[in-house]
């Protein structure tokens, strides 16, 4: 008998109070990602966002947030440029068997530069809704972390997107 892992949903909410290390204020302008290719409406799910933050290693070895790093984001479908910390907006993709490759978009390459330091990361698309979601940027002065663990089969019907929190450590 197959042990159930299917619909077990674990919801963990952790609130870290205002004494947590303050984060830099997010640039109020949300950047609209530019489409590089035409995607049929039938393959589009809806708006999604991601927040790009950059860090450097402090003298104590801990990450210290660094603002005003210029980051370029580029995938097969989108491109964009932000000044950290800043949000980007894009349209997520439907995941369905009727689309080639289940409609999965290309990976997103993010490259950031600041003060002669650089970092690059490549983000594979993930089913949105099955990711760990950080809501800290909506809760002023607090960090709220909500973890939603979904089974593989449920994730197979969620739209494709990229992780909400895109954090790079510049070196």
């Amino acid at each position, binding site marked *: 008998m*197959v042990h159930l892992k*299917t619909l077990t*949903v674990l919801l963990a909410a952790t609130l870290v109070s205002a004494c947590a290390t303050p984060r830099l204020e997010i640039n109020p302008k949300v950047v609209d990602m530019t489409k590089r290719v035409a995607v049929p409406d*039938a393959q*589009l799910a*809806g708006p999604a966002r991601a927040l790009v933050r950059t860090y450097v290693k402090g003298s104590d070895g801990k990450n210290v947030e660094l603002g005003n790093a210029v980051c370029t984001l580029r995938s097969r479908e989108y491109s964009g440029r932000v000044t950290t910390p800043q949000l980007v907006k894009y349209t997520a993709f439907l995941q369905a068997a009727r689309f080639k490759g289940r409609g999965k978009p290309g990976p997103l390459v993010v490259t950031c530069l600041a003060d002669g330091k650089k970092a690059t990361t490549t983000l594979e698309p993930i089913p949105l*809704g099955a990711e760990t979601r950080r809501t800290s940027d909506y809760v002023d002065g607090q960090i709220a972390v909500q973890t*939603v663990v979904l089974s593989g089969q*449920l994730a197979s*019907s969620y739209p494709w997107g990229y992780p909400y929190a895109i954090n790079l450590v510049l070196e």
Partner: protein
Amino acid sequence: MKKIAICTAAIVGLSGCMAPIKITSEPVAASLTSPALQERLSPNTMKMTVRAFTPKTDEAPGAEVAGAKCTLVSDELRATVITPQEVILPRFKQRAAAENRGLPGSLVITCTAGELKGKSIVTAQAKQVGTAVNAGLGAAILTTLVTAAVATATPWQYPAAISVGMTE
């Protein structure tokens, strides 16, 4: 490119104190995209009510839209309704041997009414729970915990009601 707003798929999405518009038309049955899907179906069907709404603003409350034409599309199903209307959907057997335990694809509901447009996406669950992928899409909203025992034995099904947000 036309601006298509994708709004909240609420499980019981009737807003405020407004009474919902009475449904006067007969339910419409969704069709299968392939006859081969028949063997995946559970004997029982379910009804989903499709309604459309304009969003609430500071100036005006949201209002239900009657007469919006909505197409429902998934990998397995197709249907068209005129809001508010019920659609009869099959339930899909949950089988350990099948890919993704037989989970059907997400159902995309696209509505138009004059200049108004809207799109909602709902995913099937193993119980009558509300998973709505909303406009934020940052994460699905999981409204109910499903126990392991129930989840493995229950056919996959979609929510009993869906509200599609409409904007110009």
